[in-house]
């Protein structure tokens, strides 16, 4: 397994390097930040001096070369807005988003398993159809709508929860609710599909013929096999939260990496965009390795070789 992990890390580094090069070029295509940081009537000399100070007057390949050399010294540059190392900005924001994801995904997975199992157990019953419909609705409803409605109902009308910001557990409820809906819906459908497929397989039929109860078949035998796609899709959803919780973070004033990255893009703070992209991409690569290992642990048919 150690060899497998090392091999995956090596492949990830190559992919990361290519990804980083792409990000480097893309952010610079958004334009010169001088428009934002200098007065509108600034002279061309002022704009040239600004560009020279940031190294933006050089050809892109020279900029990239300097950037790679800085990277080798673990220098990710300074934030144009804040004047502090860009990586510290990214690393300060990332745990807040990661914490959200770590709370959201277990909740989403648990609910999805319950809903998906109920839908698969008696698919044509009222409960089964309701569960299926609920999963579809949860997938379709935008997270920002859930967030705004949650604030209206639970904060303004009922006064049960704070509207936004960070603090104790109460501040987590609405952002988690908004973020958990879609993964719950998607995973519930995955669970339902996987279990329905498993329940029609020959070994299940054989077990049923031997007299094993339907409940035991569903929740002990079929369920275990249905968790495999849940892990894969769940990992995808987790990665989606890490990189895309920006709407929820914006609504709730959650200072996570999504909002930080969006603000940096709008402010043309290239160093922070690059550092944030690196942090998110690295975490997703590590997540994928973890998912692969977990998958192999659960499925004895899979080998690391």
């Amino acid at each position, binding site marked *: 397994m150690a060899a497998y992990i090392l091999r995956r890390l090596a492949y990830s580094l190559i992919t990361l390097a290519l990804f980083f090069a792409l990000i480097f070029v893309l952010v610079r295509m958004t334009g010169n930040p001088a428009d934002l940081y200098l007065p509108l009537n600034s002279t061309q000399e002022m704009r040239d001096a600004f560009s020279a100070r940031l190294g933006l007057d050089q050809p892109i390949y020279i900029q990239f070369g300097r950037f790679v050399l800085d990277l080798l010294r673990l220098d990710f540059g300074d934030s144009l807005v804040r004047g502090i190392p860009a990586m510290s900005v990214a690393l300060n924001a990332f745990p807040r988003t990661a914490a959200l994801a770590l709370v959201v995904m277990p909740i989403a997975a648990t609910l999805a398993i319950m809903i998906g199992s109920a839908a698969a157990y008696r698919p044509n019953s009222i409960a089964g159809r309701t569960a299926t419909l609920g999963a579809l609705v949860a997938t379709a409803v935008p997270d920002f709508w859930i967030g705004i409605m949650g604030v209206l109902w639970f904060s303004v009308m009922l006064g049960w929860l704070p509207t936004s910001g960070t603090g104790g557990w109460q501040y987590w409820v609405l952002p988690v609710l908004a973020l958990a809906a879609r993964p719950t819906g998607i995973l519930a459908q995955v669970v339902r599909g996987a279990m329905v497929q498993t329940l029609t397989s020959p070994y299940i039929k054989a077990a049923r013929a031997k007299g094993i109860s339907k409940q035991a078949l569903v929740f002990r035998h079929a369920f275990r096999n249905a968790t495999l796609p849940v892990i894969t899709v769940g990992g995808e959803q987790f990665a989606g939260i890490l990189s895309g919780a920006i709407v929820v973070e914006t609504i709730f004033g959650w200072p996570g990496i999504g909002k930080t990255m969006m603000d940096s893009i709008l402010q*043309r703070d290239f160093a922070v965009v690059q550092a944030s992209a690196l942090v998110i991409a690295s975490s997703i690569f590590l997540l994928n390795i973890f998912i692969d290992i977990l998958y192999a642990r659960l499925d004895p048919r899979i080998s690391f070789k």
Partner: protein
Amino acid sequence: MRNRLILPISLAVFMACAGTAPLAADDSIVVVLPEEPQSLELCESGSSIRRVTQHNVGEPLVQRDPDTQTLSEGLAVSWTQDGDTAWQFDIREGVSFHDGSALDAEAVATSLNRTWNEDLACGVAQQYFQGNTYSASAVDTMTVRIETDTLDAILPLRLSFLAISAPATSTTEKSAAPIGTGPYSFTEWVRGEHITLDRFEDYWGEAPQVAQVQYQWRQESAIRAAMVQTGEADLALSVASQDVLPEDRDTGRAVSFALPAVTLLRFDLVDPLEPLNDIRVRRAVNLAIDRQGFVDVVFDGQGSPANHVFSPSTIGYDETVPQWEYDPEEARRLIEEARADGVAVDNEIVIFGRLGVYENATESMELVAAMLNEVGLNVRVEMLALQAWLGVLRSSYEPGRPTNMMQQSHENVTGDAVFTFNPQYTASGPFSALRDDFVNEHVAAAQGLSGEERAEALREISHYLYTEVIPDAPIAVTSSTMMLSDAISYDPTPASFEEIVIGDIVLTP
């Protein structure tokens, strides 16, 4: 069993520890803004910055009443004009900066020269001190002399926008920890979360009631409104009309106030393209816009139709300029007349809008485009983030560009039209798409005038622009809505969009 509990217990502890609780003291308030300031530099002019700093952390030499535009003592107790190119200001005694250093002539001169230093690129210098060269020096301990290249009759008015910073402030870099003389000193800025100011106990003036103010920011207007409705915040700025509940208006929690700002469509007249090169089409654009309908829909009735790009209370407003009537039939007739003369009225016109320039900015431009298409023009809207919008502003005269109009919200809090004419219509103005010798010459001449002579000169320019040139389509004098909790009392002024004077807030019992 023990192993299964580790994760949920750890998460619970983590969640309980994460973040900071809001302020709890009775004499503290929370103000929620639409966006986090980019900096807290006292020489910057951006609204997001001045809302926090102006009159709270930093104070100017001259105070200006935002309702009447009258000037009064600030950090300067008196001032006199000395010849054509100099003014002298007597500095108030017994004032100290938040770091304990004394306010004197040397400190004031240093701060002024710092602001006017082109290398520092201060927004206040760009916005309020264009068209002249300024330098300050200490005549004696408490007297500052300011010299200019050419006559500046309104220098005291300009100085009312310039907050004085402490001598310890870097003269080569902008500051994120401002040091001024105001009733509040800067305490902390937790990026992404809040800014805290604390009452300065050695303030020279009347001590404010509020002991501490925490600024937070929420981009979503509904959330800002909800924070006040639930008591999490005491003041929310820039709340969209659709997020105000009926009971908010009935109880006075929601207060709308007129802004010294006009929303407009700027025409590109540097190298104009068809069909906007034809004045009949520009008149048609103005006639096709239902301004009152715009105000009713976009600003929920709070505002008024505009025919200048500044409010009627501004010196230079010409009452002889007729208000644009909503007359789509006449607009169609003018367009057809232009078409008959060979003007390519079917050419596409792009409205470059600016996202977030005011609440419902996107919807407002879609409404305007619909009105213009209704009378036979071919208009589409392209909404841009600020950076992209600025890029278009800079390149809007380049070959290959489409015929375009730019959505703007022009603000003039000074009460003097020269602060509109310079940036908006003179050849060197950063927002200008006009190259007109009459305008350039008359604006330059007006700068040296004062009193009724100045007012008459500015009115003449207004009349020329808005009846003979038609450089833009002014749409409406805008308003903004602020929400106030029951814990405070505050009367917004026309300047409140960018100056929230915490010292004017009264804590209700």
